[in-house]
């Protein structure tokens, strides 16, 4: 035991040696010694030289009280030459800081502008601040984010990057989903008022570049931005730090107390001067001028510009009427329930001029063979090969149909497919192409799809299906209740207990189960088609032939359809309201 004790004691002693060495031979002492030596060489007089020679390393610090909360900056312990102009070409940490008029080190310290952890005296601790430190050294190219903490006047010329980022915040429609106190009132995404105080610069940059990197279920569309644009937007967001330093607390409080307005004035979105200029234009021109600036093209495609998130707008004039476009502007989900598009916080006049512009815009001519037409009109959603995987497909709900699915495509009559092309599918992103293509070219396009993409051979619509034209069961609360019982027994596993297509099995099923609360879609279907889909199933999808697999007779299917209608407020007049109450989803 005694030799072991002796060995341990020696080791403990040796470790103490390491401890003392770490304490008394720190890197900052080397840096200071190096500085004293070099400065002594450059010294002009013997007296200065002697003073420098006599100096011993000591911790240098600035306590900044002018910009609360108090900062304690010991950065100059290593960066001891920041205010010594002779060290302009020296290597860090001994380089001179470029002078900024009016900014004295004694008054400002370092971390007010640069962030970092000012109390540390080791490089890693000071620059990175250790695990989860929210304010590591701000990347040099984003430094303007901190300039505007004090230079708060809007559009301050010294921070062009922040101003550019602010423009992008509106141009890229960020403001429609996110709230930044005083600047926007979106409620779909997280609030960003204090984003710059809470998040590191690299997190913000990463989130803009790939919204799903840190949150795989994020619905934020990925934006097509250049490196410079990412930097500008990230710098602008990093500058959103609430009242971290000097933003007047009263202004901050007032901004937070403001009721959420119904719409944002144009002067906030495009700036006051531009807003006046835009408002002097006639409605169509005003719409043209607003369209790229309020964020439409960060998602939609118009002409050459493509945000690669939402449907193309070039053909709107031949597809929609003014009512539809206006309704869609005010509440996109009322016409396409699965739409990702947020309701726009714009004044009605702006919607009006945007609508006028979209409907006045000449529709591009569609030329070429069906293959060429398909690429021009359909591939953006349905994909180059018609597999339903176009560039914007992941943002659409329901997803675009997979046109190569043989079982589905063959079970539909040509007439129905042509009708879908010409009239569109209400409640979904499938627009009516009838006025763009005309009946002949629509038919030719369907034929080409069947022959070249589906490779279906002859269409084989199933024969001998017996489907009643009208509901055999009258709409009544009892019928709805019976229908609900059947639904909760047979259907909810895929369609979900709320009948919104989000049942527990839905995630594994392609195409996804229908959202049966999609009112525009449900109301566009004939009774017979609903009945047929339930009774005989939908070929090429997971929808089974419930009339046979579950032995549902026509009356039960009628009940079921009454239940689905009741969910959408589509029952018989008078019965609708009470039916709605009795079928509150669980």
């Amino acid at each position: 035991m005694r030799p072991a004790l002796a060995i341990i004691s020696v080791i403990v002693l040796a470790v103490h040696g390491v401890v003392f060495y770490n304490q008394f031979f720190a890197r900052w002492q080397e840096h200071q010694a190096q500085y004293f030596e070099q400065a002594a060489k450059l010294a002009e007089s013997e007296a200065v030289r002697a003073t420098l020679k006599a100096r011993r390393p000591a911790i240098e610090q600035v306590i900044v009280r002018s910009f609360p909360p108090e900062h304690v900056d010991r950065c100059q312990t290593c960066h001891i030459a920041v205010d010594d102009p002779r060290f302009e070409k020296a290597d860090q940490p001994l380089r001179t800081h470029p002078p900024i008029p009016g900014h004295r080190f004694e008054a400002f310290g370092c971390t007010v502008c640069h962030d970092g952890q000012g109390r540390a005296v080791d490089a890693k601790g000071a620059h990175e601040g250790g695990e989860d430190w929210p304010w590591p050294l701000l990347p040099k190219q984003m430094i303007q984010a901190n300039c505007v903490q004090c230079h708060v006047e809007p559009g301050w010329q010294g921070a062009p990057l922040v101003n550019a980022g602010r423009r992008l915040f509106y141009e890229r429609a960020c403001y429609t989903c996110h709230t930044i106190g005083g600047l926007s009132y979106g409620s779909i995404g997280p609030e960003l008022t204090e984003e710059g105080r809470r998040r590191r610069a690299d997190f913000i940059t990463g989130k803009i570049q790939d919204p799903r990197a840190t949150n795989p279920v994020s619905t934020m569309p990925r934006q097509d931005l250049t490196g410079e644009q990412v930097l500008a937007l990230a710098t602008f967001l990093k500058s959103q730090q609430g009242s971290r330093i000097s933003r007047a607390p009263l202004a901050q409080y007032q901004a937070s107390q403001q009721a959420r307005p119904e719409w944002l004035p144009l002067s906030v979105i495009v700036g006051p001067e531009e807003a006046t200029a835009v408002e002097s234009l006639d409605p169509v021109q005003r719409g043209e001028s607003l369209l790229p600036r309020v964020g439409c093209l960060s998602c939609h495609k118009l002409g050459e510009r493509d945000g690669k998130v939402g449907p193309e707008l070039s053909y709107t004039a031949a597809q929609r009427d003014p009512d539809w476009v206006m309704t869609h502007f005010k509440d996109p989900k009322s016409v396409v329930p699965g739409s990702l598009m947020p309701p726009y916080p714009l004044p009605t006049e702006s919607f009006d001029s945007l609508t006028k512009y979209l409907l006045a815009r000449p529709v591009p001519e569609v030329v070429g063979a069906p293959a060429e037409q398909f690429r021009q009109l359909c591939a953006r959603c349905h994909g180059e090969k018609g597999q339903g995987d176009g560039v914007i497909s992941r943002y659409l709900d329901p997803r675009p149909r997979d046109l190569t699915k043989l079982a589905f495509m063959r079970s539909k009559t040509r007439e129905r497919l042509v009708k879908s092309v010409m009239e569109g599918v209400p409640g979904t992103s499938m627009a009516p192409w009838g006025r763009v293509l005309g009946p002949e070219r629509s038919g030719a396009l369907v034929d080409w799809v069947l022959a070249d993409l589906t490779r279906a051979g002859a269409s084989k619509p199933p024969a001998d299906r017996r489907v009643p034209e009208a509901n055999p069961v009258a709409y009544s609360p009892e019928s709805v209740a019976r229908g609900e019982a059947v639904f909760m027994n047979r259907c909810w596993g895929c369609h979900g207990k709320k009948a919104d297509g989000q049942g527990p099995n839905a995630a594994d099923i392609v195409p996804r189960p229908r959202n049966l609360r999609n009112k525009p879609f449900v109301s566009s279907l004939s009774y017979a088609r609903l009945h047929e889909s339930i009774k005989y199933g939908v070929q090429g999808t997971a929808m089974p032939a419930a009339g046979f697999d579950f032995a549902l007779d026509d009356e039960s299917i009628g009940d079921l359809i009454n239940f689905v209608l009741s969910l959408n407020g589509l029952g018989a007049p008078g019965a609708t309201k009470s039916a709605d109450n009795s079928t509150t989803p669980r």
Partner: protein
Amino acid sequence: MDKDPGLLENLKALPRNVWGSIFRNPLPSSDLARSQTTFSNLFLHIHPVKTHAHSLKPWYTLGLGVIAFSLFLILTTTGVLLMFYYVPSVDQAHNRMLDLAGTVAFGPLLRNMHRWAAHGMVAVVILHMVRVFFTGSYRAPREFNWVVGILLMLMTFFASFTGYLLPWDQLAFWAITVGTSIAGYAPVMGEQVRFLLLGDRVVGQEALIRFYVLHVAVLPLAIALLVGVHFWRIRKDGGLSRPEGLDLPEAQPAFPEALEGKALGLAPAAKLQRTKTFGVMGIVRGPFSKVGNTPDNTVYSWPNLFVAELFCFSVTVLVVLLVALLFAAPLEAPADPTHPPNPSKAPWYFLGLQEMVSYSAFWGGVGIPTLFVLGLLAVPYLDRGRLGTGVWFSRHRLLANTLFALFLIVNLVLIVIGTFFRGPNWSLVVPW
């Protein structure tokens, strides 16, 4: 000696006299001197003059009690030094941590040592309990010392838990928020207990000052007092546990070396020479005096016991030093009551509780832990057997040991799940 020594002689003898006045005995070289050294020194006299050879077997105790006490000493020392820099104020606490982690002389080392020694003490105290259980040492006459030990373990948890809040970073703030809300699940008194603990409905300045006072004054004093009781009772209960019948004549060959003291470099044990003398220290109950009538398997505590203890202490200091040099104690962003991290986790030794709370707030947070503690306290009163005491994993104690092992495994599994397999919203995640 007809004349007092003169000043000159006194001056000459000064070093020797000063030394002799401090250390009453020279380094002992005889058994009598060994006894007197142990007996007349404040720091040593809590030990018996002679220790049973069985108690000195390293693989029997693993030194866990001494290690736990060593960690307590390290924590007290580093803690007092840290108190010179720490301010229990929500405005200053985190900044003081940053200073300690960077600028204060030896600050990082002190902070790291204190942090890691605290985690270590919790772990070692638990291991110490495990050792005592698996060797059946809690049995009569040591029942109450087991109870004292359980209380000490609970106080160790609480001391560590109160210290957790003091850095006032996100980790601290949310761990304490989670930990104290577990207390809130207790029936009837839950909310009141939580309010008493926090001095408020949320963790804030009141909680910080309360936790600080508990951490630096109340709990250390209480622990020190109970440790004194714990040590005192070891002696009064007859030293460390050992198998019954170990000292009967037929069991002697088991420890021939100890008996003769050869392996330990001592003179042959006193018994053989019959040179012991005794003074009457008290009236002993029973029909006859045990003195001289029982075989003696003891060896002198000086140096055998003291060297072993010093060894344990030195190893503990070394490990804590090395860990503190290699791993920085965590320090997260300043506490921000408006932005909880997801998930917020309690300290590791409470993660088993938190895991259970995720199934049922009352049963996981209060019901089952209370049953655990009551069960542990009742153990020595339920197990009144005599066979198998003083031996690791004795076959006679198969049932008790199996139940206890099960109890340990369940807790360990819960802690491991809570620590590594729980992600945002307390959903199951795979850590690799």
